[in-house]
């Protein structure tokens, strides 16, 4: 590919919105045939770059050439537009809700002047590949989130563009559909010889790309193959397994800037790639405070997200200082009677059973994660437990009280943070806090004390009189958490609390949650479909179609999966598309993962069934199983049993 001119070439690209610099002198080259990723938190400038490349947004400086044509005039933009497809951000944003799958496709085909016979053939092929063929007549609004995204992709591809630009196609899509989407995209690109520029806010999706630009504040922090990115800030991740999380954290805090709690373990990021050195450094911190047999250390490769944070740290960005983590030791002991208890909780909406006999318990000081795809019933469970929605049958008890017809008294012991960070955006930070303090009947002195605590906890110093609308998402989220905590509840419900928040903000948020659970003994019930967050929970319950299908710790779930299916293999080979086709034909469940393949298999199985189909050059490596793997495998198995 190197002899051809790049398909996209940006030099010193600048885009401003008023005084805000969205894209700051960005250089970018994308070669023909590449699956190129723009990865970064919200507000990093990804969308602006993509829109400029698609010729739908003017830029303020620098040079930009697409297909070797400089995008200087409207005419040049129009010429380029005919050869590319753009899928804007937002689920089904480019589609018409009331039109059927087929009608949507036909519309785009006519819009793009595709000859009818070509369009018909292409439509059949694309619908077949995306497994949407069964749903041709279904109105778009009745499709699931994942199916909407697939239809969006198909509509973007109907005119066989040379370049597709997909803006956060997987945001808000559940993990199973997300994987499906990536697999389909990888197959399509390989088959059609297309180039794709795709953005995502999920760092764990980086390995799906051929090359990636890690974006932050309108610039590319690093560009390269996913595997090379880790080398930009060499480091390794030391996992500390210990019962005494709290003293361990206190001992490590002064030495290591980047550390966090992950369920029952601690994760410490050590600069420098040498594992032995990192282990020794961590050990040196822990030895004085912990007995030698009370902890175990394990070193591993860091995730891209850790590296991203390390890069920001090394650039001198102000990292969130989670003061909460350095505070005093636990005040309340954990354990004892469950504070949240669901017993055969059921809720029907007309004919539809949204929640079906769900039972679980949450102890004080425990972080309990409720996982599931969109529409699995997570939010309904929370609404029943907080008393917003009465259950059709079953019992939800919080702090020993039945929430059906719960009195006001019990509500004073519950905190709730909803999906949308329910803040009054037209009120200032302190007005929001004072409002909730008043609602919960806090007196003047206590209101002031809690206000100070929340401002401290959430890092809102200097923002007290700023309108909530003007805060970045991370701060908004922590303000919402503060408002939910204003009355020091014993039980905290969080409904998808981190959607739309960048990795830095998410980390800080989880640090705070961890402190609340471990130090203050608050019981936390968190719903999420971000699987990287599920790892933070002590205990997980997996929901599928309204039922609870698994209930265990993250580690136990991973162990169970590998016990059933064997370990996870990451396979590199010369022609992954052909290899995937051979594997599928032989009945091996494998999926495309960037330009590699992923599959579960026991080693003997791998050698006997898989290797012969791969070719001599194939390299198979073991890969640690993630919560996402667990989720996807389980849900896929369940869907096979009971098609939705």
């Amino acid at each position, binding site marked *: 590919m190197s002899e051809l001119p790049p398909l996209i070439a940006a030099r010193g690209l600048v885009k401003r919105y008023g005084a805000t610099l969205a894209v700051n002198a960005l250089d970018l080259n994308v070669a023909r045939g590449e699956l190129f990723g723009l990865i970064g938190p919200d507000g990093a400038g990804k969308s602006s770059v993509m829109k400029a490349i698609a010729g739908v947004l003017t830029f303020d400086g620098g040079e930009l050439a697409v297909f070797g044509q400089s995008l200087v005039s409207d005419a040049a933009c129009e010429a380029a537009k005919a050869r590319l497809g753009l899928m804007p951000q937002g689920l089904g944003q480019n589609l018409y809700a009331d039109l059927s799958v087929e009608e949507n496709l036909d519309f785009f085909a006519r819009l793009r002047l595709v000859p009818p016979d070509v369009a018909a053939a292409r439509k059949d092929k694309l619908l077949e590949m995306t497994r949407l063929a069964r749903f041709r007549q279904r109105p778009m609004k009745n499709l699931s989130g994942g199916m909407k995204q697939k239809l969006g992709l198909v509509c973007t591809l109907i005119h066989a563009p040379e370049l597709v630009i997909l803006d956060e196609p997987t945001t808000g899509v559940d993990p199973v559909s997300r994987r499906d989407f990536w697999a389909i995209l990888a197959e399509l690109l390989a088959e059609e010889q297309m180039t794709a520029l795709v953005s995502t806010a999920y760092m764990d999706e980086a390995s799906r790309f051929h090359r990636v630009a890690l974006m932050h504040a309108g610039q590319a922090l690093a560009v390269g193959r996913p595997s090379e990115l880790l080398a930009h800030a060499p480091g390794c991740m030391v996992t500390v397994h210990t019962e005494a999380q709290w003293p361990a954290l206190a001992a490590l805090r002064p030495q290591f800037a980047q550390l966090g709690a992950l369920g029952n373990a601690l994760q410490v990021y050590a600069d420098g790639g040498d594992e032995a050195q990192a282990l020794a450094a961590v050990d040196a911190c822990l030895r004085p405070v912990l007995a030698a047999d009370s902890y175990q250390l394990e070193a591993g490769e860091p995730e891209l997200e850790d590296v991203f944070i390390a890069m920001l740290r090394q650039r001198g960005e102000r990292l969130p200082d989670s003061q909460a983590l350095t505070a005093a030791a636990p005040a309340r002991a954990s354990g004892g009677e469950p504070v949240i208890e669901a017993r055969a909780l059921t809720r029907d909406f007309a004919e539809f059973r949204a929640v079906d006999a769900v039972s679980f318990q949450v102890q004080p000081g425990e972080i309990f994660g409720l996982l599931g795809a969109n529409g699995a019933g997570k939010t309904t469970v929370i609404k029943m437990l907080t008393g917003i929605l009465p259950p059709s049958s079953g019992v939800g008890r919080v702090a020993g009280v039945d929430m059906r017809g719960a009195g006001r008294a019990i509500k004073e012991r519950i905190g709730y943070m909803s999906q949308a960070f329910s803040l009054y955006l037209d009120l200032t930070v302190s007005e929001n806090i004072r409002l909730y303090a008043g609602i919960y009947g806090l007196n003047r002195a206590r209101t002031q004390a809690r206000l100070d605590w929340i401002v401290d906890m959430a890092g809102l110093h200097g923002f007290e009189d700023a309108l909530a609308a003007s805060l970045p998402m991370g701060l908004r989220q922590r303000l919402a958490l503060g408002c*939910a905590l204003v009355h020091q509840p014993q039980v905290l419900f969080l409904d998808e609390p981190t959607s739309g928040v960048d990795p830095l903000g998410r980390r800080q948020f989880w640090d705070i949650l961890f402190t609340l659970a471990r130090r203050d003994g608050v019981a936390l019930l968190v719903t999420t479909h971000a699987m990287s967050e599920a790892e933070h929970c002590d205990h997980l319950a997996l929901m599928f179609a309204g039922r609870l299908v698994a209930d265990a710790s993250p580690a136990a779930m991973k162990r169970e999966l590998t016990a059933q299916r064997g370990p996870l293999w990451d396979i590199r080979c010369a022609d992954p598309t052909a290899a995937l086709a051979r594997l599928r034909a032989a009945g091996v469940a494998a999926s495309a993962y960037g330009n590699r393949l992923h599959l579960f298999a026991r080693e003997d199985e791998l050698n006997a069934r898989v290797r012969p189909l791969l070719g001599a050059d194939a390299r198979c490596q073991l890969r640690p199983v993630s919560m996402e793997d667990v989720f996807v495998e389980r849900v896929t198995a369940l869907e096979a049993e009971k098609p939705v």
Partner: protein
Amino acid sequence: MNRDDLALWALRLRVMLGKELRQLLRDRVLLAFIVYAFSVDIFLAASGVSLQLNRAATLVQDFDHSTASRELSSRFVSPYFRVDGQISHDSEAQARLDDGRAMLALTIPPGFQADLQRGQPTAVQLQVDATNSVLGFLASSYASLITSRFGLEQAASALGASGAALPVIDNQVRVWFNPNQLDSWFMGITELLNIVTVFSILLPAAAMVREKERGTVEQLLVSPLSPFQIVFPKVLAMTLVIVLGSALALFGVLQLGFAVPVRGSAVLFLLLTALYVFTTAGLGLAAATLARNLAQVGMLSILILAPMIFLSGAWTPPEAMPAWLRALTYLSPMHYYIDAAFGVLLKGQGALELWRSLLGMTLIGVTVFVWGLRRVRMG
């Protein structure tokens, strides 16, 4: 309820009320709209809208060319009429009526004066464009008044010549409450009442649906606030704003600009308005529970407002409606409000004379409010 509970109640009311007022004050667009509606809009309605016949274009087709025919046509003058020229062909009259350049065509037949002088009955023809039924009605009645008076005078002068007396009834009209029959009073006050109605539905509905859109309402439902404690401060805040707006419109626009008298107690009028807004707000709350966003609630409000205003008698007196519609007017809370408001402002009625309206307003209002509240509770 003991003292602590009461203090807690007051604290919650205070913070929620403060929040509502702050939010309203920070919504510059809405605020500008409110100020516009209570000032400029009412000013326009009072000064611009008139139900009077104003210099209607009149064509005269005079076949007689006599003193009498000229005398008759010359009586079609300002302020109601304006003679727009003579025509000689029927087709011309038809054409000008068709294209709207004339509203009336008066045809005086040949021999008109001769017939009158001979004491024979005679006829003139008047063609009226009644596209606007009110104006058409006014034009034809004024025109018949002119012709019959002219006929009467002719008859009197003829009889006077013979010395006999004519029995004439002199109709002595006393016009009460609006002696000069100024449209600006009626239209200005009606517009104010309309605006009050629109905002009393729209403002609480918008405030409620905004909470729903942002998801803050769940946050409130999870808190120890009762649905009433969530809704009451909202309605209270909106009532306050609307009463302030009404005071601005009444004193600043109607009284200052159009000398509308406030014959009864202005305080009573504002209290009436407060009661009306408070109770009508229930309709807005109910609308907010049905709508998913601000746009939907806006459309729903129009759906509620149209029949409410129509049935109120603001634009057509209930007496002019068919019986079954007139019965329905008793269901429109605005019907009572209009009666009471005109009663206080123009007739100088006091609370005692208004008890029927007050009772009707309260009964319907409380029912609607409780219903709206129930809908909020059910989410």
